């Protein structure tokens, strides 16, 4: 850690860990309800658990991105953060808005719009909070002694993510128009600008971990994010096939969605090639594992499993079934959750001075959570495909099918238990690091310094 102000990232990472555990708890409530055990129905109905599970995901990932930015931007711009008190204010207001939103879901204060259930009055607080965050990041970058492509790609991703939140704040009477703009936010986040953030953080991690020349990594970063927008922007069309949009979206969405895996494949090749070119001497094996798994699992989850049901002829049958849940879980896990765990694994030793980067707990965290998530994906796949055949092709009633596929949710819960064990191991390691300290300050803390340890 070069600058004291980078320590603020710890707050955001700690919040991410707390919200991740809560997200998993609500996931279990939903899994058991699908199996027929909804004993908490009166207290936490399924739609409450569903809104909470999804929004906690968004908030903990965003918290991780913010923490990553607060750690990376001072390092990349060679400058202290613009204002630590403002960053603390931004952290606490972000956490408080998050708590109010989640509490609100339990008393019916929400809007029934998947992933964007936060009610509009709170949206304005979210927007204000994000503006404050961006001011801090941009001022740090502009006042910095250095400027890097990695820092600008990351920052642009964050700026565009904030701008894209705005279309989701407008109310429309026509639900098809409402849905159209909801995907401006959700799709253009996760299959657009969040990939800029992902590319920026991955590039930073690869520069630090592999020791490969920055110019080479940043050149390929442009290519990867270029592929993302080339395919992802018009790929939004796959959400407009059957939601009231004109029929030309079937062709446009189909073609560009089919190209979307290329961006993720580019990300995979980018990371693996840089690792192969590097000197493989970096001692932080856990950060390396999470970095490479981000690149690989995102391709499998977001790229391949997305492709599996994105073509219009297939999507006509899979749209609105558990097949989407299959894709969604592995995609979010691979592309964004693992990325946040990667930057935490990389930065925590540097912020705390504790060199926990190759221990048994960390490896158990990595393998249990990944194997668990693949098991969950398999369970969702089995349930989803069975649902498609029974309901959409054979014509059985929804509830008849729901009963038939209950056993798959037992498998889901078993796999989710293994996943949870992995996450608990990760959090145990996180707690072992303790809090960041000024004693961890080093003028040149990264690759060479760590190698000397």
């Amino acid at each position, binding site marked *: 850690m070069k600058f004291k102000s980078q320590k603020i990232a710890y707050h955001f990472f700690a919040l991410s860990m707390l919200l991740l555990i809560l997200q998993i708890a609500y996931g279990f409530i939903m899994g058991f309800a699908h199996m027929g055990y909804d004993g908490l129905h009166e207290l936490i109905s399924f739609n409450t658990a569903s809104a909470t599970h999804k929004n906690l995901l968004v908030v903990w990932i965003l918290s991780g991105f913010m923490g990553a930015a607060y750690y990376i931007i001072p390092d990349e711009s060679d400058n202290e953060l613009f204002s630590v008190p403002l960053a603390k204010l931004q952290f606490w207001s972000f956490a408080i808005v998050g708590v109010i939103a989640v509490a609100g879901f339990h008393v019916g204060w929400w809007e029934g719009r998947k992933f964007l259930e936060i009610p509009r009055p709170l949206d304005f607080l979210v927007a204000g909070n994000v503006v404050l965050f961006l001011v801090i990041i941009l001022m740090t970058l502009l006042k910095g002694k250095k400027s890097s492509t990695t820092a600008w790609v990351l920052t642009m991703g964050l700026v565009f993510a904030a701008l894209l939140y705005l279309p989701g704040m407008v109310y429309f009477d*026509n639900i098809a128009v409402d849905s*159209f703009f909801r995907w401006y936010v959700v799709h253009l986040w996760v299959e657009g600008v969040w990939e800029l953030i992902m590319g920026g953080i991955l590039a930073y991690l690869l520069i630090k971990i592999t020791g490969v020349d920055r110019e080479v990594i940043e*050149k390929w970063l442009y290519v990867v994010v270029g592929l993302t*927008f080339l395919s992802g922007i018009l790929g939004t069309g796959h959400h407009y096939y*059957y939601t*009231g949009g004109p029929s030309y979206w079937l062709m446009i969405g189909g073609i560009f969605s089919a190209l979307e895996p290329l961006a993720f494949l580019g990300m995979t090749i980018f990371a693996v090639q840089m690792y192969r070119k590097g000197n493989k001497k970096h001692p932080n094996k856990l950060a390396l594992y999470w970095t490479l798994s981000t690149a690989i699992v995102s391709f499998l989850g977001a790229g391949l499993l997305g492709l599996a049901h994105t073509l219009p002829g297939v999507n006509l049958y899979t749209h609105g079934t558990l097949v989407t849940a299959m894709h969604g879980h592995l995609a979010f896990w691979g592309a964004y959750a693992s990325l946040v765990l990667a930057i935490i694994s990389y930065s925590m030793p540097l912020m705390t001075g504790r060199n926990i980067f190759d221990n048994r707990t960390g490896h158990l965290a990595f393998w249990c959570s990944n194997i668990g998530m693949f098991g969950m994906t398999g369970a969702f796949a089995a349930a989803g495909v069975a649902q498609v055949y029974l309901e959409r092709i054979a014509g059985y009633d929804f509830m008849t099918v729901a009963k038939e596929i209950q056993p798959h949710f037992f498998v889901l819960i078993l796999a989710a238990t293994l996943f949870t064990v992995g996450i608990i191991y990760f959090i145990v390691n996180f707690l072992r690091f303790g809090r960041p300290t000024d004693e961890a300050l080093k003028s040149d803390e990264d690759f060479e310094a760590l190698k000397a340890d």
Partner: protein
Amino acid sequence: MLSKQQAKVFFLGGTLLFLAIFVGMSIHSLVVGIPENTNDSDMTEEVILGKQLWDENNCMGCHTLMGEGAYYAPELTRVYERKGADYIRTVLNAPNGWAPRGRNMVKYDLTPEEVEGLVAFFEWMNRADLNGFPPEPSVGN
């Protein structure tokens, strides 16, 4: 070999080009496509009330509509045609909350006007042209 500058031009040029196409198609969809496909001009006060209730109660947190939602309760795009208005009223007015085969629906205390709003909303939804969604089951056809 590709230079960093060329890579930057590829990124910025490609993004701007496809963004422009996307914005153009969006405008057409919003001005012409969606209003026609969804019979936007037929949206009565009752339909708008139904849509508000759909949002306020987060029905999408269990059901799906136009295939969008949470996969825990039935898809409702064509529920008006499949089950009829009276069935919808019965479900919404169930005194202890609807519980088909043990799966509990949240109990709502809706006014008669609100129930009719939701019925009107489903009737309006039923007429939307969604490019063939939901598909007709093919076995036996």
